[in-house]
């Protein structure tokens, strides 16, 4: 039993980015490729049919090409082509032979079989998804177009000539070109079928006293359709949006960091000005620091903590909107063992700076630094201090005399 193949990802975004992507878009646009079909209306189809006749049915008479009036004749009298046409005689009449194309003014609903069944209400349908990059945000647009409206346009192609050979030449061209009953013309990128309905002869050959010429008319039907670009719909599909949320000062946030394979947890509270007790909701094995607005608090003076409990109690409630952070190692006892079986110790050592080089020698070889503060203000490693060797820590700049330096580290 075969497994259904599912596409696991949608390639919404182009593989090229930056300059390469811009060049790709430029090439796409300049080569006439758009994400939408080109507009196709009556005048486009008429122009397409004129081109179709000119490209396929040019015949030669007396060694010269038979002129084709490549315009659709209309009722605007002054515009009649004969006035400016190079193949007019001194009376302004077109010289024979020539070919003319007449479009029947009426255009009926199309008879193309595949277009007989329609969904009512003229709704628009999905056509393509196009990437975009607007206001610095990459996204995509969905292009929808209405169902094209089929139309039948009927044309008469008339040949007026005085030679039977000219009739034969055009007849041969048309019937051979349409020997499979249809022909195609590309109009604005659309393949439009053209059918030959028949040929009629209106030559006044029976006229005894009048002018004599041949007039044959080939009747064509173009199975076109209308694609109106003004009815295209563009809607946003997917956009990568930047959303910002402003959260109220409620609850607590918990962050866990790995130091020397130990999980050191920091829980931050937003004080409301009344609460004295802050609960981290888990047992605190080793309490490392308690800070209020970044200032390290002193145990048994500023706050109180009972081992293996989860609460910190302040003697005075921190001010409203103060940030209270409690850093600790979650453990059932004070003996720590890393994943490799090594016993770790959390050391807290306090020094008073009495002048001179601000070097502080700690008792145990340091494996990892947890925190160092001077008078309650935490310093950053390699900025405020450096670990010169496993037992010596040097402040970057000397603090004021009698400053209290607290170093908490893992050995």
């Amino acid at each position, binding site marked *: 039993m075969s497994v259904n193949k599912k596409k696991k990802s949608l390639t919404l975004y182009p593989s090229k980015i930056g300059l390469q992507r811009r060049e790709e878009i430029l090439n796409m646009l300049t080569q006439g490729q758009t994400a939408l079909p080109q507009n196709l209306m009556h005048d486009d189809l008429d122009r397409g049919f*004129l081109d179709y006749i000119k490209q396929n049915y040019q015949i030669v008479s007396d060694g010269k090409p038979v002129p084709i009036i490549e315009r659709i004749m209309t009722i605007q009298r*002054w*515009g009649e082509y004969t*006035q400016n046409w190079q193949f007019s005689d001194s*009376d*302004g009449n077109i010289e024979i032979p020539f070919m003319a194309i007449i479009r029947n003014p009426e255009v009926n609903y199309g008879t193309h079989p595949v277009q007989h069944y329609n969904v009512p209400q003229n709704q628009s349908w999905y056509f393509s998804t196009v990437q975009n990059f607007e206001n610095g945000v990459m996204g995509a647009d969905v292009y929808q177009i209405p169902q094209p409206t089929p139309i039948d346009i009927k044309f008469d192609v008339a040949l007026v000539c005085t030679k039977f050979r000219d009739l034969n030449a055009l007849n041969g061209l048309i019937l051979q070109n349409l020997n499979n009953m249809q022909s195609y013309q590309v109009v604005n990128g659309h393949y439009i079928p053209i059918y030959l309905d028949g040929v009629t002869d209106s030559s006044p050959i029976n006229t005894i006293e009048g002018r004599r010429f041949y007039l044959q008319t080939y009747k064509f039907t173009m199975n076109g359709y209308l694609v109106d670009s003004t009815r295209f719909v563009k809607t946003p599909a997917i956009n990568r949006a930047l959303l910002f949320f402003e959260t109220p000062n409620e609850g607590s946030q918990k962050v866990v960091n790995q130091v020397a394979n130990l999980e050191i947890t920091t829980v931050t509270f937003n004080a409301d000005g009344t609460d004295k007790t802050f609960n981290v909701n888990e047992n605190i094995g080793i309490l490392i620091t308690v800070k209020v607005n970044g200032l390290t608090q002193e145990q048994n003076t500023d706050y109180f903590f009972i081992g293996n409990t989860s609460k910190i109690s302040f003697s005075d409630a921190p001010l409203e909107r103060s940030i209270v952070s409690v850093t600790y190692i979650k453990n059932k006892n004070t003996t720590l063992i890393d994943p490799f079986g090594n016993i770790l110790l959390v050391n807290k050592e306090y020094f008073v700076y009495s002048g001179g080089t601000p070097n502080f020698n700690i008792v145990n070889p340091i494996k990892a630094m947890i925190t160092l503060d001077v008078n309650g203000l935490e310093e950053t490693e390699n900025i405020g201090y450096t670990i010169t060797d496993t037992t010596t820590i040097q402040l970057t700049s000397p603090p004021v005399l009698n400053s209290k330096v607290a170093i908490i580290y893992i050995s």
Partner: protein
Amino acid sequence: MDNKLPITRLGKFFGQDDFDLQLRVGQEYLQGDLNMKLVLYRVDRQKTDTDDVYLETAGSDSIVFFPPVEFSGLVKIDPPKNETYKEGIIRYLEPGNINVSVYIKHLDELKIDIRYGDYLGYPESETRMRYYTVVNDGKVVSDNKHNMFGYKPYYRTIIGSFVQDVAFRGV
């Protein structure tokens, strides 16, 4: 340069001098006594911008005209047409065609030609100007009617069809 062939027919009874005399008499009658004036609006087909499928302009105001020219002609207007667009509905009443007989020499003197599709203006009253489009420019004057005693042609008959103001209202 076109060849010129002298007209010598009717030479014993009629010649160029007689032809010119008759023309002067006729022009004096038409332009001096009758004094029927029309305005010719010639379409500049070179400067008028048209589309490449239908050879139509975007609107009637976008047709470019040469400066209007006043000329004299013998005017005859057909009775008004009281008709409908389609079998009994939407009636319209409008002037009949205008028939203008104009001396060929007069057109040559004015250095103008009246062509199919040009417009004619004819003042019907002090306040009303009617416009017509040329539907027959009468260029072919080979018939006896337009020949003076069979000597040679001397006038053209221009036929114009009425146009509504939306199609043309002067320039």
